Structure formats: structure tokens, C-alpha cells
């Protein structure tokens, strides 16, 4: 045991031999902080090499006309960004992504909260039901996409089979404009993880608060809105933020729902599910425009950054924190 200390602690200087307390403490804190950096170094190095460097590399690429393979590239300054300003396809894909987010995030947060409220009651088989709703969120995306393609299949799919029973003609779901709704349904199917988070939040609300309101004669509906929701608002808020960031980066689902479901399928992604990341992907791998694609990535990065900052700044106006945030960590 003691060898470890001797190796790591700075060698004691001969004059410091009758180690007084302050000296020992200083030496200890130096050892301690060096150990801190040693322990966190995997993440610090990883963050620098595998996040900062690729992001910087992407920024460098965004200033070139690199096509991914040839060595005949040159610096083009910010012209990729200027082109992006007037790129109607990119803008359309961004708007579509905003629309997708504006539909998916409120819906999934609301349904997750509703489900959590129902499953928070003392019911029989409530554990089994929780599992049923939670399970889809851990199904890998590839299986999810294959599964939903089988449901949205025009001739053999479950959805058209049901619609036929009620007298509605078969719909070709995975083309425009219905592919957009198919993508939304696929996304909502995985809201179970959000439900689990909401459920934990609900169970953290002190029972006395709700009981006190009940004694005061408040209706259950009012208690829910005026007691429960404010109490769990930090969790709801966090769900909205992560939900927005997650739905902004959706790429694999549209790719796999498309006709040929493969990595090269970007050309068969119907316009209605051609989200921003799909557009980025297309610029990189279908159009061989690595410089332009990198510029699009960086714009996306800045958008995420701005959203996060805005949301954090505004949160104090509409989120109720029981504990002072600065002391909570």
C-alpha cells in the first residue's frame, strides 16, 4: 500500500522533514489534484481527440471544396456558408425538421406524462403495463424500422388491413406526404423512456402537498395543474430540451424507412421525411460535397448551441425549482 503513495506523492524535501501541518496539507492537496486529473484524463483526452478535433476538422473542411477523396481541394473561405443561406433545399429540410420537432416533442412529452399519471395509481398489473410501454424504447432502431415498414406496407401491412375493415382504401404510406406521419408514429412509439422519467418525478412529489390541496377542496384536475405539474416542471422542462435536441438530429429512421433501407438509400428518402440531417448526409455521401456538408453540420451545431442557451436562460421564468440550483449539485 505504501509504495503507491511514495510513487505518487512528491518526494519530501530534506528541509521539510519535521513536516508541519500546513506543509503536509499542501502536499496532500497537490497529490489530490494531480490524482483528480489522472482520474478524469480518459474523458478529457477523449473529449479533446474524439469531439473537439473532429468538430474542428469539420470546421476546416467547411472552408474548403473537399469532395471526400481527391487531393485537389482548395480553401474557399466562407462561400459554403454563403451558399447555404440561399440553398432552398437546405432551408426546406430545416423547416421540415422544425415542424417534425414541433409535433413530436409536445406530443411525446404529453403522452408520456399522461401515461405516467395513469400508471402512478395503485392498479393491478401496473408493473406489466409499465414494461409494455417501456419496452419499445429499447428496441434497436434497425428492428424498429423493419417492423414499421411491415406495418406501413401497402399490400400486406397491418395498418391497411385495419383500414380496409372499416372501408378505407389502401394507402401507400411510405411515400409523400404520408411518410411524414409514419415517421412521427414510429418516433412516438418509443416514448416509453420519457414515461419512466415522468413516473419517477411523480413519485417524488410529496404526498402531503396533494393531500393538503385535497383537504382544501381542490379538484383532482386543479391539483394536477397547480400542484403536481409545477413540482415536476424541471423534469418536464428537461424532457422538452432533450427531446428537441434528439429530434433535430434524426437521420437513421428516414433512411431506413425509405425504399431501399440501406446506408446509400438517401436518394430514395421521400421529400416529406427529408429532414436536415438527411440533407447533410446527402451532401456528404450522395453529392460528394464534404466541404458543404461540413458547413451544414456547423450550422446545425450552432443551432443546437443557441437552443440550449436560450432554453437555459428562459427556464427560470417558467420552471419551479424547489432547491436553489446552485446548491443542488
Amino acid at each position, binding site marked *: 500500500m505504501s509504495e503507491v503513495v511514495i510513487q505518487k506523492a512528491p518526494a519530501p524535501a530534506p528541509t521539510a522533514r519535521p513536516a508541519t501541518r500546513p506543509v503536509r496539507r499542501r502536499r496532500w492537496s497537490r497529490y489530490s489534484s494531480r490524482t483528480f*486529473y489522472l482520474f478524469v484524463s480518459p474523458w478529457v483526452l*477523449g473529449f479533446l*481527440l474524439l*469531439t473537439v478535433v473532429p468538430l474542428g476538422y469539420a470546421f476546416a473542411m467547411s472552408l474548403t471544396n473537399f469532395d471526400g477523396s481527391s487531393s485537389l481541394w482548395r480553401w474557399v473561405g466562407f462561400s459554403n456558408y454563403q451558399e447555404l443561406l440561399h440553398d432552398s433545399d437546405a432551408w426546406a429540410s430545416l423547416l421540415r425538421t422544425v415542424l417534425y420537432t414541433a409535433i413530436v416533442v409536445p406530443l411525446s412529452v404529453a403522452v408520456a406524462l399522461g401515461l405516467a399519471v*395513469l400508471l402512478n395509481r395503485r392498479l393491478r398489473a401496473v408493473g406489466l403495463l409499465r414494461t409494455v410501454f417501456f419496452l419499445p424504447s429499447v428496441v434497436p432502431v*434497425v*428492428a424498429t424500422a423493419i417492423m414499421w415498414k411491415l406495418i406501413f406496407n401497402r399490400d400486406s401491412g397491418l395498418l391497411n388491413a385495419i383500414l380496409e375493415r372499416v372501408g378505407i382504401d389502401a394507402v401507400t404510406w411510405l411515400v409523400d406526404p404520408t411518410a411524414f406521419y409514419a415517421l412521427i408514429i414510429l418516433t412516438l412509439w418509443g416514448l416509453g423512456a420519457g414515461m419512466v422519467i415522468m413516473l419517477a418525478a411523480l413519485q417524488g412529489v410529496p404526498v402531503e402537498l396533494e393531500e393538503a390541496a385535497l383537504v382544501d377542496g381542490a379538484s383532482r384536475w386543479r391539483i394536477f395543474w397547480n400542484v403536481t405539474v409545477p413540482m415536476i416542471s424541471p423534469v418536464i422542462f428537461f424532457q422538452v430540451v432533450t427531446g428537441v435536441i434528439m429530434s433535430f438530429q434524426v437521420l437513421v429512421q428516414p433512411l431506413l424507412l425509405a425504399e431501399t433501407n440501406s446506408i446509400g438509400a438517401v436518394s430514395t428518402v421521400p421529400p416529406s421525411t427529408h429532414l436536415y440531417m438527411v440533407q447533410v448526409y446527402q451532401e456528404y455521401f450522395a453529392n460528394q460535397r464534404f466541404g458543404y456538408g461540413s458547413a451544414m453540420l456547423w450550422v446545425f451545431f450552432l443551432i*443546437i448551441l443557441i437552443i440550449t442557451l436560450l432554453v437555459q436562460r428562459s427556464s427560470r421564468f417558467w420552471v419551479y425549482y424547489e432547491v436553489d440550483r446552485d446548491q443542488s449539485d
Partner: protein
Amino acid sequence: MTRATDRTVARRLDAGATYLVLMVLAVLFAGPLAWLVLAALKKQSEWVAVPIHVLPETPQWSNFTDAFTGINFPAYAMNSLFLSTVYAVLVTLSSAAVGFGFARLKGPGKRPLFLVLLSTMMLPSILTLIPTYVLFSRLGLVNTYWPWVLWGLAASPYLVFLFRQFFAAIPIDLEDAAIIDGCGYGRIFLRIFLPLSRPALITSFLLSFTWIWGDYLAPALLLDIDHTTLSVAITQGYRDPHGDYIPTLQAAAAALYVVPVMVIFLFAQRYFVRSIVTSGVKG
């Protein structure tokens, strides 16, 4: 009728309505998976039959064996298993170490570093994946498994946070204990904290395993068809001589591919619940 029975009736009605809503939703959530399994058990001719057959006439269990031979399923499964295990072991150990550092050690700049870590939890990995691919192909790391080793060694902010919360809650006054015993932090971590953190280690291993098992984009970009994982392989194979997909076989393959995740999930659901409840993020 007395007031008490009135209330009981109301409560029963209320519970009944809740059940009804939950049952309808449960069918909506479980239905798609059931349809996948049903499709996997149908003959190809039955799948395309008009009108649609809901239940297969005779379950075609041979679809599963065909899915196993239609592509080199065992080889791809081994690739997935290998990558997932290597990554899960490495990322669990590295994240535990970093989490320990943030939970129990002090150093200048710890607070800002932790804030950076928290904000990278929100950073979409897709942002760095494509440039990483370009970089790695220049470094000759494409079609190797080194990227997953590097990602594993680099720790995951999400898991670091998980471990940090876990270690911070362990009530031992270590600074004093360490001073008295002359024991270094390396030993304290390995001998005291790691054995205490079994639940966190299991959570981290299972979570990170399922991440890589379920990942599509990274293997699709970084690995060719000979090196790739099951997730990519099942989207590529299972075609008839015309190059069209055979949906029943693909369904069978997808069902087989999901089985490990399902098993892990059903046996270790509480670990999954704990992880997302601790962090408030869904992995």
C-alpha cells in the same frame, strides 16, 4: 344509496376507465412487435396474399433457420457481440474512473470541467460522427474495430454522470481514512469503490452493450460488409434473385436480432430504470 357506496361506485368506474385507456394504449404499443413476429412466421406467399392474413396458417419456423443462413448471421452476430462487449467493458471502466474523479477528488477547474461534461451529454453524437469518419479513413482506422476501442477508452459523459452520482452518495470520509492508512486513491478506487458499485457497473455495462448492439450509423459508415455488425447486415441481405427484399426473412432476422436486447431488458429492467431516472436522459 349511501354516500360511501356512491363513492365506491365512482372509484370503480374511474379505475375501469383508466384500465380501458391503458389497455387500448398497450395494444398500440405491443401490436407492432406482435406483427413483426407474425410476419416472421408467414410463408412468403401468405405475406403477399390478398386479403391480408393476420395469423399464419402454419407457423413457418423454418424462416428463422433461413434467416440464419440467408446471410452469414453467426459471423455478423459475433462481430456485434465482440464490438459491444469490448466497448461496454472499456467504457464502463473508464467512465467509473472519471466518475470517481468528479465525485471524490478535488482539483482546480473541476467545476467548469464538470459543466463541460454535462453539456457534452446533450451534444448529438451524429455531429462528430461524419467528420470522425473522414478523419479515421485518413488514419486507416476504417474497417478496423479501433474506433470502438477509442470510444470505449474515452468514457461516456452519460455514464460518467451515472457513476458520479453513485460515488457521491457513498458515505465514507475517505480523505481522512486515506491519510491515516497511507493508502493512495488508486487503491481506494479499486479496492473500496469499485466493489461497492456493482449495481452501477451492471447498469453501465448493460446500457453500453445495448447501445453498440443497436447502433446503425457508426458501423454503416466505418465498416464494410465483411466487417460490419448484425444491425447493418440485416438491412442489406435477404433479397430474392431480383434483388427485392424478402420481408418474412427480414422480419425473422430482425426478431432474432432483437432477442438479446429483450432478454437483457426483461431481466434487468430495474437497471435501465435506475439509469434513466438518475440522469433524466434516455441513454
